[in-house]
Every structure is written in C-alpha cells, then in structure tokens.
C-alpha cells in the first residue's frame, strides 16, 4: 500500500463531502436545517454533467449546479420562514423528490461520457515529498474543498459577520434586538449553504466520480451525519469527512486481510454509528467530565476541542414579536 497515493485518494474522494458538510454547517449555524442534501447532491451532480455535455463549459456546469443547490435551499428556507412549514418535513420530501427528479431528468445523459475538471498541479509545492502529491496535485474543485475549511472557520470565528451568523442560529431573539435582520440572513446563509451543496454535486460529476451514474444516494446523508459528528465545527466536520472516506479506503484493503474480517457493510455503517456515539457523548455531559479531568494547563484547549452544542435555535422558526 502506497501511503502517499492512498492519502491523495482520500483528499480527492472526500472533497464533495467536505464541501457539502461545510455548506450544511453554514446553513445550520444560521438555525436552518436543510435536510435535502442527498437529493440536492444528486440533482446538482446530474445538472453539472448535463450542462457540461450540452455546452462544453466547465464554469457554466459548476454555476448551474450551484444554482440548483441554492434553489432547493431556497424552497427549504422559504417554506420555513414565509410558509411556516416544518423544515425537516420539507427537506425530507425534497430529498426524495430531487433524487427521483435527477434520475428522471438525467436519463438522456446517464452513463454518457462527460468532461473532467483538468488537473492543475501547483508548481514547486507539488514536489514536496508526501504533502505535495497529497495536497497540491489536484484540480480546482479539490483545492477549493481544502481552502473552504479554513475559510469557513475563519469566517465563523474570526469575523464580525461570522459572529452574527452564530447569533442568529443560537439566539435569534437577541440578535434581532441588536438590530440583525434574522430572516434576511437566514435566507442568505441557507442559499449560500445550498450553493455549496450544489458545488459538492458538481465535484462528484466533474471530478470524483466523473459523469452521471445515478449512484450518489447516501452521500448527502453522510454529509448531514458528519455535521453532527463534527458538532457544527468546520475543522471537525472536515475531519469527519476524511475519517469516513479513509475508512472506506481501509475497507478495500481489509477484504484481503487474513486477520480482520470486516465486511464492507460494517464500514458503511460506521458514519451512523459514530454519529450516534457523538450525539450521546455531546448530550450526556461525558465530554464536560473529560474536560474536568484534564490537567489545568490543557483545559482551555481541550474544552475548545470538545465543546459541543448544536446551534440552540436550530430548526426553529423565528417570529418577530
């Protein structure tokens, strides 16, 4: 097993899950749950493939996919804010609807050769041993997945609008009192998150899986799961994505292993298992205890790492009183 190429493969395969996960994180941090990810990714992946086949233009394909993702997100947030419908129910219906729609509308382009995002190795950096091939020998979409992690983290924790974002997800009433236009920003962040989900779809059909083969169902649910696994924190969401994809990679190696007999299904089950464990740990106070038992010197760091709370207003509607 070649470590470099395995890691490179993980960075590449995990890219769409990272992008979708970070997108959903932004949406959820604003207090909205967009549950439609699974269908959104399929529909946008199909869209990107269809557009690139029709127009030959990669930028147009990417933009179209992002528009599809944003449009679906708009339905979620509009039906929540304007129509006062249940976000979870609408998102769930949209998941199924978009998945079927992707298969139905994508028939003319199913299994047809598309176009691939060209490789764009970064000069000099790509020659660094290990790190070079793993991080700097990809295409733009994969690079973006890496940059996005930093961007989202920086935006949420280091900028003023990021603070506002957190506040409308945690305490929309307080934010409103301070003069924040809660509903408006929820639209903005949900659409932005949705556009990223659409970009994740484009990353599948223009890079990771290349083409449209109707076999993307499940990836969106995994992205949703790792947002929870990552406890709504950009780094941990990314970590979750790499972990899941890394495990898939390990599962392939394990097939020949005489020592460990672990069927693929077990590995495929792990995201959900990890999600439940994480939620249990996060809500049971175990994490708090772990912080208490760490030496004082490390407490702030450990606390920051283990601190776990979903946005308090997640999934609720906000009414101006």
């Amino acid at each position, binding site marked *: *097993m*070649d470590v470099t*190429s*395995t890691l*490179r*493969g993980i960075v590449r*395969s995990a890219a769409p899950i990272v992008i979708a996960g970070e997108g959903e994180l932004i949406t959820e941090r604003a207090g909205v749950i967009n549950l439609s990810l699974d269908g959104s990714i399929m529909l946008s992946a199909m869209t990107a493939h269809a557009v690139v086949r029709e127009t030959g233009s990669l930028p147009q394909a990417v933009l179209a996919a992002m528009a599809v993702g944003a449009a679906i997100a708009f339905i979620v947030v509009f*039906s929540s804010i304007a*129509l006062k*419908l249940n976000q979870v129910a609408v998102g769930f*219906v949209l998941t*199924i*609807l978009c998945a*079927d*729609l992707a*298969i*139905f509308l994508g*028939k003319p382009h*199913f*299994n047809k*050769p598309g176009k*691939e995002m*060209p*490789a764009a190795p970064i000069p000099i950096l790509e020659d660094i041993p290990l790190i070079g091939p793993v991080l700097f020998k990809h295409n733009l979409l994969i690079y973006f997945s890496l940059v996005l992690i930093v961007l989202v983290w920086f935006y949420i924790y280091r900028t003023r609008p990021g603070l506002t974002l957190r506040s409308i997800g945690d305490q929309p009433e307080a934010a409103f009192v301070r003069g924040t236009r809660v509903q408006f920003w929820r639209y903005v962040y949900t659409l932005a998150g949705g556009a990223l989900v659409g970009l994740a779809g484009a990353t599948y059909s223009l890079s*990771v*899986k*290349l*083409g449209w*083969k*109707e*076999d*993307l*169902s*499940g*990836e969106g649910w995994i992205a949703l799961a790792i947002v929870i696994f990552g406890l709504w924190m950009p780094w941990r969401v990314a970590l979750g994505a790499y972990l899941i994809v890394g495990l*898939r*990679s390990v*599962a*392939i*190696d394990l*097939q*020949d292993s005489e020592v460990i007999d672990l*069927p*693929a*299904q077990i590995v*495929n089950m792990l995201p959900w298992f990890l999600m439940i464990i994480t939620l249990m740990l996060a809500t049971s106070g175990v994490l708090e205890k772990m912080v208490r038992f760490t030496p004082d010197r490390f407490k702030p760091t450990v606390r920051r790492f283990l601190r776990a709370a979903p946005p308090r207003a997640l999934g609720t509607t906000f009414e101006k009183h």
Partner: protein
Amino acid sequence: MFKKLCVLAVLVALVAGGVISATPQAQAQDDGLIFGVVLVGPKDDHGWSEAHYNAGLYVEENLPGSKMLLLESLNAADRPETTLEQVVEGMVEQGAQLILTTSADFEVDTPVVAESYPDVVFVNVSGDDAFWGIAPENVGNFMGQMEYGEMIAGCAAALKTQTGSLGYVGPLIDPETTRLVNATYLGARYCYENYRGMDPNELTFGVTWIGFWFNIPGVTLDPTDVSSKFLDDGADVLISGIDTTEALVVAGQRAAEGEAVWAVPYDFEGGCEEAPDICLGVPYFNWGPAYLKTAQAVADGTWVQSWEWNPPDWDDLNNPDTTAVGYIMGTGLSDEETATLEEFIAALAAGAKGEEGGLNLFVGPLNFQDGSVYLEEGEVATPAQIWFAARNADEAETPEDVNPPQLLEGIEGTSE
C-alpha cells in the same frame, strides 16, 4: 393554509410523476409473441443490462409481431418494494408467454415464481437450475461462454502491462464470477509468458470484490474507489467484471492526468465508449441469437427445458447473428499487440474446435488458492469443473454437494 396545500399538491404530483414514469409501459398485442425481460440494472448501464436490453430489441426486430415488456433495475436498492413475483404477475397479465430473468440475482426466485405460471416459459440467464434438473419444467437457463472473452481480456492486459500488475474489479463471489476471474488470470499468465517472454510468477493479479453487480452506495464497496486503489497500488491495467464502467472511467481520468494506465471493460459491445483511447478492448455478451432462438421456440410451441452454455462463433467472433460472446479490439492496443491478440484468439479457436495444436488453458497442473488440486498434471477440465470452479463438480448430485468455488493459486484476493 391554501398556500401549504398548493405546495403539497405540487410536490405530490411531482413525486407521483416520477414513480409512474418508472413503471413498465407496454400494451398487449393481439398477435405475436409477448416476452418479458427483467433487468437487474438500468437498460443503459453500458454493461450487462444494456446487452440484455439490446437482445430484446433484436428479437423484436427479427421475430415479426413480437413485443418486449421491460422492467429495469429490479434490485433491493432501486426497488426495495418490488418482488420478482409482482413483476412477473404484471407481465403475465399483459400477455407475456416468455419471461427472461437476466441475473444471478433472480436465480433463486425464478423457479419459485415459475411454479405459479406453468404455461409461461421462464429463462434465468446465467443460472444452472435446469442443469441439475431441480427446476420446474417451464424453467430453462442459458449463458455465454464468457471464459473465452475473459481469457482474451486477460491476454490483452498482460500484453500491455508495464508494471506487471493487473487489477480485477469483481462483483460478488459466486461460481460464475470465480470462473471468470480464473479464466482472465489464465489468459493473462499465458500471454505474459508466451508473448511477452516474462516469468508468469512475477505477474501480479489482484481481485477486489465490490459486493454486488454494480455500486449500491452504503452496501457495496465503491468501484470508483476500488479502481483508484488498484492504480495507487501499482496496477496499470484494470479489468472490469462488474456491470458498470467505473474501471474504465477511472483509468481514463488517470490517463488524462498523464499516467500510463489502461482498462478492459466488460459485458457490452460499446463498453469502450467512455474512454476509447485507453481501452484494450471489451469482451461482451451477444445475447440476441439465444434470445431469438428461445422466443422462436416459445412462439412455435416447441420449447423444451434446457441448460445451454453458448459458445462464441469462432469463425466470426463478432457476428451479431451467430456468436454468443465476442471481443471488440480496443484502440489502446498497438497494431502489434492487436496482431498478437488475434493470434491468441486463433489458438483458442483451434483449441475449442479440438484441432491439432489448439490452445486450452484449463489444463492441469492447476491448484486453488488453498493449495488443493483443481486439475492434475495434464488433466483437462470438464465443462462442469469450469462452470463451478470446483474439482468435484462432476461427482456432485445436487448443487449443495459441489465444493465452493475457488480462485486459482497465484491470484491475490479472497475466494470467499
């Protein structure tokens, strides 16, 4: 409230629209044979299912008045709510007199369902219930001798490889897939040694099974990942044994990035289409003739139960009206390699016809992975031994008596 209802109504209509469009569409006709084709995957998978769909079209073309009823993607992931029994019921209601269940996935259910419809002929493609005589009289089987196609595929891969490492993306483990991997391996070894002049023991041949005939997210390994992994680990030719084309697509991507890699797809005549430049050719099933013969017999009322393992037409390997298995040369092969492969095919043809100097690769000494003997020195495998990839296939009286299939010694990958 009204708004909500509107939204709901639109959503329901859209969902319902999607569902309705997915149900089989066909009208019964007054005359001519109506036959049903049940596919495990979509009819445009560029692989196994598409080859079957095309055979159905071939019957419609060549048997006047005949009409195909099609059901795509009958599998636990795409249609968890649908059983073979329901599908058959629907097709019989629409007048089907012949139903082809075109996957090993339907092998267990086909005879069971067939019991309820004694007047309808059932053919399970790739199964062997009729071989054992345990199936109801209205159930037959046929299959193509893809071993030859795979030997050619293996040979093409061995002629091309620079790293001496080949990766086989396998579906699930059963006698069919095991014998096909074995055949591929034998072809590869032979050509590596005899045409390349290399030591066949230095040829690396790995198999990874994804767990089903195609990718089912959350259930199987992802064939895209499996293909990438092979290339990462040093293989430079991928051979596909699954219904879909991921191996070729991944190799095409890598080649576009400048790597020297190739692939051999499977099942379908047009299999090379997605990355022709790095395609070393495709062994494919040509089901048309077998379909037509069966349909004709059913229409004439002369059909009798049989188990058929149809050979390629050695005089005209790619004749759509006569061959059961063909091989389309890929543009990834050089002229010289193509010529060598032609030579190999000619030798196989001679062997199959029993001519002097002909080539038969299923000849001992051959061992299985666990070290047990498959064929003694000089022993020629019987058809049953090849079919079941087991030494005791001829002595067994029921399917349960046959040893589980095993990969040959020298293949890396699991047999169970």
